[in-house]
């Protein structure tokens, strides 16, 4: 979610009213934004914008545009969206760029002096759109240039990065394009958009904007025509809000696009959405009239044509988020204010219940506490050190369920790179941390574990297991066996112990717990080497049961 930094004074001049923190917060509610840092003493405020589908709101211009009640239709405020005049400036987009970065959109801004604060804002919009909306420039990147340095028509074409050289901004000497993307900070940031390409798309004839310039050329390049166009539309609207006169640029594509081969940008890509009044009322549980709906939506900046109950709604071209009539319903609700809706409870009756397995697991938890065990809750993520090495397990031995471990492809740290496949390591972790807590220790956890299950369509399984552990100077198999026996007597179930071996347990003091011929768990004394790994200084015995199998 993008966070932007604005100055309150800039915001006030865009909104044409005085602001304080409370008023600012009220405004931000309407754009799903919140103040993260309010610092009036430095005239700076950080705002987080939560709607990832409304990049037009990621600037003070955009927020002001939205929260100011619209007085006239957007086309009157932003006439440049109409494809009327034949633009003087032209850009030719070659066939060759289609393999690398096929789309370009552009506009010209005149008669707005770029002051230092305005330049900062322009750069912020440029970066937010390129980073958050354009996925770190991969899908969209934006360039700002001094108009007077450009001779139209401009050609957008591929060049050989080794052979094309110029003096980049902030450097003294001429570098090849290849050198620039390897050494120049802007070039490095741009490099990920070019991965694998052996020729680079560039705009010939350029120069970066400085404070004091009054005439700008803005271009957006990218991999998606709608996104590129939306970005230039937002930029143009922002500049217009600051008093600039926007001129369109005519684009000549060598290849066919969704908008044709010759068209101009900014470009109205909005598509009408049709909503009936009854649909609006059904979704909201209201009885709104057409007039109320139209007034609210218009003041929210939307264009509406009505035909009886049918409303055809168009958003301004700097928005591209009306995907479904339901989106208009929310705009209406926000425009009217969420607090204007009376909450009511659903009238239908439903019966509540726990899942069968959770009920059973809860019952087991209560039996365990009645047997004197204290419950623990552990994280499920852990390390191979905890789940394999400290358990003395052989990770290659896939016959044991606990070695079928789900591993993470992209762990942030080794400490949390695996899912636990049984509960015992979690309990030993508690034991290893709790030598200062008075003994005896009798602890248990009933919780989820995950394991690979390549033989099933799901490929993995999530099960509930009950692990229990005792540790004190005289803890042994016999004491734990008595407790297990007490647990089974509560379950009214017969079970038997089949002697077996397990690397985490002392040979000759370990067995599988078997019910009706099915293995449902294991029990034994933890072997001293494992206790050493966990730095446990007390004899320890443990059992673990697969709850689904009981």
């Amino acid at each position, binding site marked *: 979610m993008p966070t932007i930094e604005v100055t309150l004074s800039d915001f006030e001049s865009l909104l044409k009213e005085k602001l304080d923190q409370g008023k600012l917060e009220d405004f931000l509610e309407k754009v799903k934004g919140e103040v993260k840092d309010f610092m009036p003493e430095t005239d700076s405020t950080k705002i987080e914008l*939560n709607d990832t589908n409304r990049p037009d709101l990621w600037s003070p211009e955009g927020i002001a545009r939205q929260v100011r009640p619209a007085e006239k239709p957007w086309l009157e405020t932003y006439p440049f969206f109409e494809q009327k005049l034949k633009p003087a400036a032209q850009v030719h987009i070659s066939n060759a760029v289609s393999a690398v970065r096929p789309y370009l959109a552009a506009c010209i801004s005149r008669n707005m002096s770029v002051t230092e604060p305005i330049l900062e804002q322009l750069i912020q919009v440029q970066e937010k759109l390129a980073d958050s909306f354009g996925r770190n420039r991969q899908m969209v990147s934006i360039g700002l240039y001094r108009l007077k340095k450009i001779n139209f028509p401009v050609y957008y074409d591929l060049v050989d990065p080794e052979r094309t050289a110029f003096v980049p901004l902030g450097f003294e000497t001429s570098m090849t394009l290849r050198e620039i993307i390897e050494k120049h900070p802007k070039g490095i940031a741009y490099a990920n958009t070019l991965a694998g390409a052996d020729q680079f798309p560039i705009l010939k004839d350029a120069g970066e904007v400085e404070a004091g310039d009054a005439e700008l050329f803005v271009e957006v390049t990218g991999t998606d025509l709608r996104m590129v166009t939306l970005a230039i539309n937002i930029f143009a609207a922002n500049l217009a809000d600051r008093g600039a006169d926007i001129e369109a640029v005519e684009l000549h594509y060598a290849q066919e696009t969704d908008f044709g081969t010759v068209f101009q940008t900014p470009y109205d890509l909005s598509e009408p959405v049709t909503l009936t009044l009854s649909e609006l009322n059904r979704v909201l549980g209201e009885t709104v009239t057409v007039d109320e709906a139209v007034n609210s939506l218009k003041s929210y900046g939307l264009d509406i044509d009505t035909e009886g109950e049918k409303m055809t709604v168009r958003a301004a071209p700097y928005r591209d988020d009306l995907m479904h009539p339901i989106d208009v319903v929310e705009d209406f609700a926000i425009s009217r204010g969420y607090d204007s809706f009376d909450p009511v*409870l*659903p009238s239908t009756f439903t019966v509540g219940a726990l899942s069968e397995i959770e009920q059973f697991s809860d019952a087991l938890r209560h039996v365990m506490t009645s047997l004197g065990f204290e419950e623990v809750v552990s994280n499920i993520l852990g390390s191979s050190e905890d789940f394999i090495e400290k358990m003395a397990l052989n990770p290659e031995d896939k016959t044991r369920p606990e070695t079928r471990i789900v591993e993470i*492809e992209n762990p942030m740290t080794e400490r949390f790179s695996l*899912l636990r496949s049984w509960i015992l390591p979690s309990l030993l972790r508690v034991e290893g941390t709790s030598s200062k807590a008075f003994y005896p220790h009798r*602890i248990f956890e009933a919780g989820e574990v995950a394991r690979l299950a390549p033989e099933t369509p799901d*490929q*993995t399984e999530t099960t509930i297991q009950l692990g229990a552990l005792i540790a004190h100077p005289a803890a042994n198999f016999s004491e734990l066996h008595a407790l297990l026996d007490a647990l089974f007597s509560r379950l009214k179930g017969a079970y038997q112990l089949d002697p077996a071996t397990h690397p985490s347990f002392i040979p000759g003091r370990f067995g599988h717990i078997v019910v009706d011929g099915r293995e449902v768990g294991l029990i034994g004394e933890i072997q001293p080497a494992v206790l050493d790994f966990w730095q446990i200084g007390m004899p320890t015995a443990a059992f673990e049961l697969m709850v689904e199998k009981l």
Partner: protein
Amino acid sequence: MSEEIELSHLVEALHPLEKQLLKFLADAPVMDDPNIVAHSGLKTTQVSTAVEWLLAKKVIAVSAEEETAMVRLTEIGKKYSSTKNPVLRMAEEILERGEVAIRELQQRNDMEAEEKSRAIGALKSSGAVSVIPGGRFKISDESKLSPFRDLQNVIDLLNEKEGLAPLSDFSNSDQAIIETYHRKRSPSKGIFRVDLEVKRSYEKTALFRPVYEKVASEKVVTTLSELTPEILKDGSWKGKAFRKYNIQLPPPRMGGGALHPYKAFLDQVKTKFISMGFSEMRGPLVESEFWDMDALFMPQFHPAREIHDVYFVKNKPHDNSIPKAMIDRVAAAHENGGESGSRGWRYPFDSDRTRRLILRSQGTSVSARVLGEGPANPGKYFSIARCFRYDQVDATHAPDFFQVEGIVLGEDIHFRTLLGLLTLFAKEVAKADKIKFLPAYFPFTEPSVEMHVRHPQLGWMELGGAGLFRPEVTGPLGVDVPVIAWGLGLDRMAMIALGISDIRDLFSADLGLIREKQCIRRAER
């Protein structure tokens, strides 16, 4: 409590050993450990127990402590006190029979082989015997046997003192003998052991006299120390009193069974939702991108789906259990809206990637599954699902965490019933007295709402997010009634309830900390 009552309580709780010790001390000229052991008629262990008890009750006090070297007989020493030491035993046989074959001495069965060879060696080197032809010993100089006789005297002397006496009780020459034969850190060798022991001397406190007088004036009644099945059976308890306990002594500690405080908190949440008519749903920890995100209309290019946001399963296993028709419908919703009335996200949906496995990143995936499986209509569902996010672990981020969330579906579901349910949650779950709804953004709901509530202790806080599922979510999953999706953030409430400030402590591995938090709360009335 009056002094008199206090005194009788104290006397009534006296153990018979304490009374015996009291009576001895009343007239004892010297009140120190050795004297008490020697003359009180109590065994050593009984003395130390009774002394400690009387000290604790402040009837006596320690007047002085001095370190004393104490000599005691080892197991070997005790054996020699009854059978005499091996050298002497052999010498006496030789004296009695005039001469004895060495082979015969070696075959004696009243001592260990090592004892025999050492005794024979000692006899030879003492000069008391001479070897005569035929390998036989005879006593040639009986006076040379005196060191062994002296040794035996020391052993016997110590034995008379019950095998324990201060080193200073012995003459210098005896002390030299003890020095020669005392054990030097080897457990099996040696006849004597010398330990430094603290000898304490005691004095009577002001309490002694009154306590003693009360004890002395007591009628002699046999008290029972324990009630046993035998005593119950034969009725011998009748007419007898039981010794009183000091019930104020600290008991041995035990943990006792207890639910984990955080789980108990979540249990309360579960109960709350069941009481509001919600059914529990469950889903797997390892989830496909389909259920976790695609079915929720999050486009595959969504920023929250990258490797720095979601954990992917190693070796990229793919879930083969998702019905193909459902994948196709979801794909259509993403690409062009399908039949949902939406224009879609307009990008080519990757039907292979959708089956890729990740760690569940949001509890809403459980809701998506339930919608796809055909939920009850009307229906209310909740789940408490463990979720995983690619976050730096710190005081506000646990490696994995629980999300409380769910769905409500039915013909009468709309924006106002959504607000109504959230108001109910705010009151029932958070005990909020004020509530505020704000516009919010979630990719899968429209309209979306964020709920802020005023909690009695916490003040204003964000309690959760909710909305009506978009038609692009419900349609492809085969649900044709409106559905509310809601999620609550309860961890902050849990942390306040448990009095912790670091979210990782909800999953603490420190049993000491867990025990601190195992208290029972009763709802305020």
